[in-house]
């Protein structure tokens, strides 16, 4: 089946792949189809303080901490009524699919497929620090965000040299943020903002378990990516100051770095890292990730992940693939069988070397190159098979992925792997 066909729906896929939990399939399906919130549900969520209003440039948007299924798995991004007009124009979705609806039934939140109740869902509360400001007046919500529930995320810098070099990853839709951001590094003041925000966030009991630091790619430096590394180290220092020790579960989603840089980051408090390969096939990697291909190349990206295992240990290094990117036409794989064979070959190659791999559901959004190319998301069945494949490989090599699971990041496959403690992973 080519990637342009919707394929079987949730019930059919769940029946065909009974080992993949239906709640995990539902999570994926909400990512593929989207979730629109009714006015009634929006009003109730607002009344119960689950929506944080963020106003910028005369435009108000809602921040939602997360919407969880019964097992704690988060669902795809919500779209409110005032966003619906632009939503249709800004996203390419599977042919013929319609979004799920988040509505209320008897005063509770439910996910509906057309008019049929599918699952009860639960809003995760907004973090208590969101409405506070640092001593110099910076809104703390602009410094750090929950993402998802137990993970405190900090975007270390808001630009990506790959975009500036017109070599953005083709699926990436962050152009607005990542071109407008500053590239002159953190200042004492901005680090103080981070320190104060983290200190405030940690006052909330029973909330945070891990930090996630991420940024665009910055290959500048005497050794490539030195500038990016230095910025991470500055921010890690601010977090250390707020926590009071280096034992704060710092996780980094960044570029491929050299082994010496991984060691510097470990010394600064990082315990887990993620240099993402994105697409396994070499020709497709070069085509879809031209920035990564130019600034290091596929071999460097792979070796960096393998080197990181020596520094951080098995189970603390994760690569990532953008599931469905390898089906981009006309240059990608023509069938999902061929696509999965390629991706899982790569995942197994990395697992043999102590690196685990997660996946993201491909979103085709307006600002991406893929949107201009008219690419379409893969089918739910493809993602069911990819989820199972990644989990099976993790079990085969007994690699845990706890730093990157349902409540510390939220990938479908890693959310599935949470069941494998303690029988099937170390």
């Amino acid at each position, binding site marked *: 089946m080519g990637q342009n066909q919707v394929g079987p729906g949730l019930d059919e896929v769940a029946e065909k792949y009974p080992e993949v*939990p239906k709640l995990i399939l539902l999570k994926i399906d909400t990512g593929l189809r989207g979730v629109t919130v009714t006015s009634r549900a929006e009003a109730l969520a607002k009344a119960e303080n689950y929506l944080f209003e963020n106003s910028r440039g005369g435009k108000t948007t809602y921040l939602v901490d997360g919407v969880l299924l*019964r097992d704690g798995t988060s669902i795809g991004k919500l779209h409110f009524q005032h966003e619906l007009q632009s939503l249709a124009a800004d996203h390419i979705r599977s042919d013929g699919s319609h979004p799920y609806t988040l509505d209320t039934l008897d005063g509770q939140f439910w996910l509906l497929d057309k008019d049929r109740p599918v699952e009860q869902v639960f809003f995760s509360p907004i973090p208590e620090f969101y409405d506070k400001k640092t001593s110099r007046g910076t809104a703390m919500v602009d410094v750090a965000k929950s993402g998802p529930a137990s993970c405190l995320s900090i975007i270390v810098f808001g630009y990506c040299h790959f975009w500036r070099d017109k070599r953005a990853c083709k699926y990436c839709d962050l152009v607005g943020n990542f071109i407008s951001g500053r590239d002159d590094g953190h200042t004492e003041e901005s680090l103080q903002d981070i320190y104060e925000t983290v200190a405030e966030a940690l006052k909330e009991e029973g909330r945070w378990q891990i930090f996630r630091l991420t940024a665009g790619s910055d290959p500048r430096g005497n050794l490539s990516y030195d500038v990016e590394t230095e910025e991470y180290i500055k921010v890690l220092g601010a977090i250390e100051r707020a926590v009071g020790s280096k034992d704060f579960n710092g996780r980094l989603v960044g570029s491929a770095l050299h082994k010496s840089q991984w060691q510097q980051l470990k010394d600064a408090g990082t315990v887990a890292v993620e240099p993402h390969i994105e697409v396994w096939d070499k020709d497709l990697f070069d085509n879809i990730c031209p920035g990564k291909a130019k600034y290091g190349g596929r071999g460097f990206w792979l070796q960096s992940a393998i080197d990181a295992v020596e520094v951080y240990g098995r189970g603390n290094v994760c690569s990532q693939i953008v599931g469905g990117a390898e089906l981009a036409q006309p240059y990608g794989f023509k069938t999902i069988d061929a696509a999965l064979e390629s991706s899982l070959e790569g995942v197994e190659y990395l697992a043999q070397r102590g690196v685990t791999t997660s996946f993201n559901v491909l979103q085709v959004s307006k600002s991406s190159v893929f949107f201009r190319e008219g690419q379409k998301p893969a089918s739910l069945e493809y993602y069911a098979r990819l989820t199972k494949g990644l989990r099976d490989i993790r079990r085969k090599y007994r690699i845990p992925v706890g730093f990157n699971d349902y409540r510390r990041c939220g990938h479908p496959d890693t959310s599935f792997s*949470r*069941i494998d*403690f303690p029988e099937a992973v170390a």
Partner: protein
Amino acid sequence: MSLLTAQIIALLEDPEAVKVVATTDEQGRPHVVRREGFTVLDDGSLAYAEGLESSQTKSNLLRALWYDRYVAVTVFGKEGAAFQIKGKPVRFDFTSPLYKRFYQAARESYGKDSDITGVWLIAPEEVRNEAFEVRKAEEERTHPYFRHLDRESLKRPLST
């Protein structure tokens, strides 16, 4: 209507009563552990906090939720009271006010380094009185031929 009587709820919430959670792993092997801090919610479901994210019990409860399997909670009171509650896990909660309540209770009971991973909600579907005297009386009523006949209570003096 809740399957749980006031007596069972009181036992579940009695800190001195022993509570055990029985689950099965991927191969169907049983796993039985002692747990505490149970409470019964207004909708009749049982709630308790699981301490460890990577515990066998946590995985087995998740397996039961995902694949529609049963688990059992048995409570043993003083003076022989015992009830077994079979049911299905219906939610794992690590964000709500209920979760925060359990988290704070763990902190108060076990100090500021104590932790929980979340709260499991189990919907009871079947309750069985496991007190030996109750089970014995039932068996003797329904299957009298399972008794040995040399019991003291069965002896009558020989007529002369």
